[in-house]
């Protein structure tokens, strides 16, 4: 049988959809790990980015944030996962959540910061002139105008995290990566490929659905 057939047979086998090692449970783990990482990153990054962009002071700090998040691209996620394993943070799903959080922060932080700071200074001035307080300017002018970029950062972070959560399996964690890691481990090409197909499909699905959400947030007249 060809690899494609084998893979389809694997994917069609009901036995692979039951129990802890079944597709539904692994998918749930994958989404749980990813959601927790993006959520944690948002809690850390969004307030900081919005504050930095809103105050319009500390320009140096803002630029440092952008440089730092560019530099983070050079650090392999895989290395951070293994480094964490060698510390008290340890192995498994929880450690993976922390590692992925580190990589979800930069796109969220940069995009939100640039979005808020990029709001035309004249517009902010005009809002102030109309008697808006700082908080009102933020809530009614800056945040709505920054929303497209914030959404873009969120999408980048989420897609990247869902993709990278696959590596959890290599540090004793779960998620859909398990099928790939175990497939390689017992030299089972059908399972390896099936795992690859599942992970790829999930990533594309997340990307497309977030693109739709982003699009609906971005288009149309916004009330300022």
């Amino acid at each position, binding site marked *: 049988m060809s*690899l494609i057939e084998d893979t389809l047979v694997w994917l069609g086998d009901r036995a692979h959809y039951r129990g802890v090692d079944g597709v539904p449970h692994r998918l749930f783990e994958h989404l749980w790990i990813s959601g927790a990482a993006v959520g944690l990153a948002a809690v850390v990054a969004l307030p900081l980015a919005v504050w930095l962009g809103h105050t319009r002071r500390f320009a140096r700090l803002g630029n440092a944030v952008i440089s730092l998040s560019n530099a983070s691209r050079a650090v392999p996620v895989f290395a951070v996962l293994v480094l964490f394993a060698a510390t008290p943070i340890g192995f498994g799903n929880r450690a993976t959540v922390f590692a992925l959080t580190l990589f979800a922060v930069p796109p969220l932080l940069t995009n939100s910061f640039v979005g808020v700071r990029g709001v035309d200074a004249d517009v902010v001035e005009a809002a102030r002139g109309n008697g808006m307080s700082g908080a009102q300017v933020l809530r009614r002018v800056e945040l709505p105008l920054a929303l497209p970029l914030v959404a873009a950062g969120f999408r980048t972070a989420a897609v990247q995290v869902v993709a990278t959560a696959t590596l959890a399996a*290599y540090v004793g964690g779960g998620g859909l990566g398990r099928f790939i890691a175990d497939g390689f481990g017992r030299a089972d090409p059908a399972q390896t490929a099936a795992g690859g197909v599942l992970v790829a499909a999930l990533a594309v699905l997340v990307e497309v659905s977030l693109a739709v959400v982003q699009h609906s947030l971005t288009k149309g007249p916004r009330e300022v």
Partner: protein
Amino acid sequence: MLVASGSPPNPWISVDYVRQNADVLVAATRQHVELVALGVGFGLLIAIPLALLVRGHPRAESLLLGATGVIYTIPSLALFAVLAPITGLTVKTVVIGLTGYTLLVLVRNILAGLAGVPEDVREAARGMGMGRLRMLVRVELPLALPTVLAGVRVATVSTVALATVGVVVSNGGLGQLIFEGLNRNLYRAEIFTATVLCVLVAGVADLLLLGLERLLTPWTRR
């Protein structure tokens, strides 16, 4: 392997480790650099003609960007998993994957660079009697170069990090050492040294490309 009772010393930084494993470290770094060079090199070989082919046709442009975007979205581990049963546990598998991931950034920046050439400059070149090919080589590509090279830098730095995942098909350059350290009772010196080398490779590559950009586009500085 050493599994001593109590807690054996397991430092993150060990000069002894580096000294005793210099050969291994050099070999892994060399493979890493090769993987990245091949990935980005093939990426450029594919991206440049494709970008030139679609430019000026908005629908073809967005189709190409969409297609490279889909490749970019597929997680590297998934791609290696699907490729490995066909191309085996080889360097080839890793290079095909890495090449695929560079395409989006490269195509996007080549198109943006070319689109950024001012229309009156084109006009002037035409007025001087330049044909399309000559205008491309002598005028458009040089003016697009800073944007293109910015894309090459992003692609290179990301590829250095991504190459470590090649470990799943036994060809991950420095990733190989990181994984080995994991399996040797978390041999910290090995994990840490390989990670630092990885970041260094990315930094050095970025600086070299920055230097190349300065060298090739002297007119951007005054």
